[in-house]
């Protein structure tokens, strides 16, 4: 039995007479890795997330978590392993205060009270919302809600954490902070991280990227491998990092690059070569 999430020949459609949203999809998420899933709207990304924690079930093929098939019988076990944060946090608040809301997940899992109090405070600190413990979730701003929703999942410390555009409403700095927090937790506990995102910096930082297009896995590889396909990426509605675009333009002026740069540091390194070449 392997500790990983596995999709084997997964097909899914929302209505019987509708075309499939996912077509014969195969991939896996290893323990401890960070995988970014990208794709245009309607490419099937969110459906994948929902299949991972049993909000939906595969029509054909199998989704399994640590060797356990995701089905109506296993769904509660699965959800202990797989924590999920959605894009719109309004759909997932249950508590009347931020504190209650974060405690909710732990209550479901029978965490003792003292431990719970500590974890609520700790996870709120992690997302820099410690002064909001007694606030009403629905009165927070969009970005603050997203922070609280993430704290709620961090408190349960799942084996797999799915973030479905869960930072879309944060400002760029806040997004990086939250991601760093999640990364720290991931490294400490060997948690796997699956982020569904359009944020290019986030994609560049992931270990592996799965590109979805029209319900199929279009490409799978490291960020560098993915962004080497600049033209075809834009043909399926996706963007490439600023540095990759600039690289492409500079090639037009005869500049050659040893390694395709993906971030500012790598670009500067390449430019030093240009600068010092005799």
């Amino acid at each position, binding site marked *: 039995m392997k500790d990983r999430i596995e999709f084997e020949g997964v097909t899914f459609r929302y209505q019987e007479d509708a075309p499939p949203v996912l077509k014969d999809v195969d991939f896996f998420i290893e323990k401890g890795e960070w995988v970014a899933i990208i*794709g*245009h*709207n*309607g490419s099937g990304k969110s459906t994948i997330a929902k299949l991972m924690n049993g909000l939906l079930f595969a029509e054909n093929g199998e989704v399994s978590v640590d060797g356990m098939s995701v089905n109506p019988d296993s769904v509660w076990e699965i959800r202990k392993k797989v924590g999920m944060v959605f*894009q*719109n946090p*309004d759909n997932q608040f249950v508590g009347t205060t931020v504190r209650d809301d974060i405690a909710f997940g732990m209550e479901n899992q029978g965490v003792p009270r003292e431990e719970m109090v500590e974890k609520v405070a700790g996870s709120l600190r992690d997302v820099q919302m410690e002064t909001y413990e*007694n*606030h*009403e979730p629905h*009165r*927070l*701003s*969009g*970005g*603050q809600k997203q*922070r609280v929703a993430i704290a709620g999942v961090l408190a349960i410390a799942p084996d797999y954490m799915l973030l479905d*555009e869960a930072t*879309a*409403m*944060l*400002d*760029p*700095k*806040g997004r990086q902070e939250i991601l760093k927090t999640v990364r720290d937790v991931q490294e400490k506990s060997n948690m796997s991280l699956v982020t569904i995102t*359009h944020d290019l910096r986030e994609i560049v930082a992931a270990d592996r990227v799965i590109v979805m297009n029209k319900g199929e896995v279009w490409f799978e590889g490291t960020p560098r491998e993915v962004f080497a396909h600049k033209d075809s990426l834009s043909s399926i*509605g*996706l*963007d490439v990092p*600023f*540095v990759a*675009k*600039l690289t492409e*333009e*500079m090639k*037009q*002026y*005869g*500049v050659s690059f040893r390694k395709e740069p993906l971030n*500012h540091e790598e*670009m*500067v390194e390449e*430019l*030093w070569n*240009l*600068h010092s*070449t*005799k």
Partner: protein
Amino acid sequence: MELTFNEVTYTYSPGTPFEFRALENLSLHVPSGSYTAIIGHTGSGKSTLIQHINALLQPTSGSVKVGDFVIEAGKKNKNLRSLREKTGIVFQYPEHQLFEETVEKDIAFGPKNFGVDEEEIRERVDKALEAVQLPEDMKEKSPFDLSGGQMRRVAIAGVLAMKPKVLVLDEPTAGLDPRGQKEMMDMFYSLHESEELTTVLVTHSMEDALTYADEVVILNEGRKYMQGAPLDVFKRKEELRQVQLDVPEVLEFLEKIEKEFGVSIEYNKQPLAELAKELTSRLGRRDDYE
């Protein structure tokens, strides 16, 4: 239509344990026909600010002037209807507010409420659909059978059908894919021009602010922190970083180039190809290019 905020303070739940001052002594002038981007850290008061524009919120102290309409602390608002007819707000995730059986009915809901006659409504619905670039045959469909991006366009069409003079956009592209984001921002810009709208955009995207806005307002903890033309504001990198904001990536990159190579390249919205050319010639061997 011009907007003026005059020393506006807004406090949520005053006198309760939840009391929270979201805006503090904020003064702001948005000229008629301008495109203003409002930027700020999460919780800086952006959404509170825009809810004053159509009097969904009333200042705790100070006043807001929208065209001839004045919203003042402690005074009952008269004639709210006409204010709300002229100020269209596209809230975050507006597609969550769709509810009618058909796209046509949903778009018609606003004007119908304001007593616009049937024929005029039909015209406005067609025009609004065209403006958001949805096909006419979509009118009879249920909005709930559409994709997320299409649903958002329907919701926006509903706002446009009111024929607003002021259009307020609260992170209108959140959750759209990159192509969808660009298409939507371009769409708003062309509406801004063709309808001569006064546009207020709340965004986290420095890139969008730089591309589309004439003026940028930076909020921090409920106060106005900076205001000016985008390129002028984004030059003040240190001040922005102090309030946890980044500058557009291209400016950040050019700053790094200056630090590393001592080569300073002025950014004035030149296309990427031109920038690449400048970089190549300034950083490369001189005799190759001169």
